[in-house]
């Protein structure tokens, strides 16, 4: 199995099978009004649509099952994973979870999933004081227990952190913890002031703070210690423009879509502009004819300093950050320090 695909061969789906969650994180992009879940038979139809598109496009699929908290729908989640295990056009899938519902039994069952590449859990800091202030009391302990339970069974684990003023100075210490725990990969997303995160807007990093953080993370990554630091994100390019392991063109409009619990399709979960419904419109209509996607695909539509940037072919900033800071998803990325 090829667990790391080339962007030109791959098509990525982020699939939120539920928006229900057992946590109430302060920075969450959900707005507190969960969409209705689809029954398993309908989830199967969603999967059919994905497979049909992958076959037509001759792309290898990758998929993240997430929520809400996906293990709230444990039965459906495992049924879907079993099915994807049998679909040749999917190369692999990940599960993105808060980790709180991963018992020993669940970890053992995950180990049997043939195409499960890794389980991603979220941690916001190196210690409970930081993490639990965002994710709720006891969350740090639960997440660490889940990591250990899964590592014991040989699963590949990734940790994701949402970076803000609240935790950015703690990231080097967090990476130390992850190294000690044997976590395989570490990734960061910038806080987007949307959903509940809207009330966290004052915690957005300034561009200078982001620059300082990304530069320090890059220095740590160069040491190539245990945990591999994933830096494939827009704006990260600025730190080391000639290093292909740093930065990436946003996948919106290029090779990715987000599917919500009721089948609504977004360009990206962080850019929640509905562009259709996978069950009623189908993927071909959405992918080929969405006005939003076509606007994003044409780099000349990007405004401000992003438009004239020499890294335009490889970056283009984060459209969601532009949208929630200015109201225009084609505006410049406000956290870029150029």
């Amino acid at each position, binding site marked *: 199995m090829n667990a790391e695909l080339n962007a030109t061969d791959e098509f990525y789906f982020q699939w939120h099978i539920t928006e229900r969650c057992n946590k109430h994180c302060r920075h969450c992009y959900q707005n507190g009004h969960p969409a209705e879940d689809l029954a398993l038979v309908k989830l199967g139809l969603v999967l059919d649509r994905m497979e049909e598109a992958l076959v037509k*496009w001759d792309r290898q699929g990758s998929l993240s099952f997430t929520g809400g908290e996906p293990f709230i729908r444990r039965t459906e989640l495992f049924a879907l994973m079993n099915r994807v295990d049998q679909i040749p056009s999917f190369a692999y899938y990940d599960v993105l979870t808060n980790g709180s519902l991963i018992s020993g039994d669940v970890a053992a069952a995950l180990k049997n999933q043939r195409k499960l590449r890794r389980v991603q859990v979220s941690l916001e800091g190196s210690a409970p004081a930081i993490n639990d202030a965002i994710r709720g009391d006891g969350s740090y302990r639960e997440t660490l227990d889940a990591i250990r339970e899964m590592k014991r069974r040989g699963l590949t684990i990734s940790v994701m952190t949402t970076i803000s003023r609240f935790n950015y100075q703690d990231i080097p210490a967090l990476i130390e913890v992850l190294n000690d725990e044997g976590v395989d990969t570490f990734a960061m997303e910038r806080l987007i002031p949307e959903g509940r995160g809207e009330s966290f807007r004052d915690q957005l990093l300034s561009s200078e703070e982001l620059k300082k953080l990304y530069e320090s993370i890059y220095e740590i990554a160069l040491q190539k210690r245990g945990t591999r630091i994933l830096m494939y994100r827009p704006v990260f390019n600025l730190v080391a423009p000639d290093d292909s392991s740093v930065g990436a063109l946003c996948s919106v409009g290029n090779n990715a879509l987000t599917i919500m619990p009721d089948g609504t399709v977004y360009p990206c979960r962080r850019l929640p502009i509905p562009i259709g419904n996978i069950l009623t419109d*189908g993927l071909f209509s959405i992918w080929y004819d969405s006005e939003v996607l076509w606007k994003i695909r044409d780099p000349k539509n990007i405004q401000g300093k992003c438009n004239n940037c020499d890294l335009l072919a490889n970056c283009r900033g984060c459209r969601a950050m532009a949208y929630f800071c200015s109201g225009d998803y084609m505006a410049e990325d406000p956290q870029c320090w150029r």
Partner: protein
Amino acid sequence: MLALKSGVVLALEPGIVLHSLPDQDWFYAFSVITGDQFRLNRTSFWVLTNISTGTDWTRLRDDFFKTFKVSSEQGEEDLRKLMNEFYKQKIIRREGNEKNKL
């Protein structure tokens, strides 16, 4: 073979949409029904864009000669070849009720 004669009105097949990023020399026709995608050149895209407006064969041919500055003899032969290819690929059809037979 496409029987093209004066007065024949052409149309895109249902579900065909056209999109381009001209600065990147990127021209496509897509079928939102079958999922098929067709990479085009600038000339083919111009022809299909005109067809999408409901033009008839005579006007399309005349506009083609003018736009691409080709002789009527060579231009018509090239355009007919192109139209037959579009028809074969199920990108265009003849508008009207003659069972869409071209």
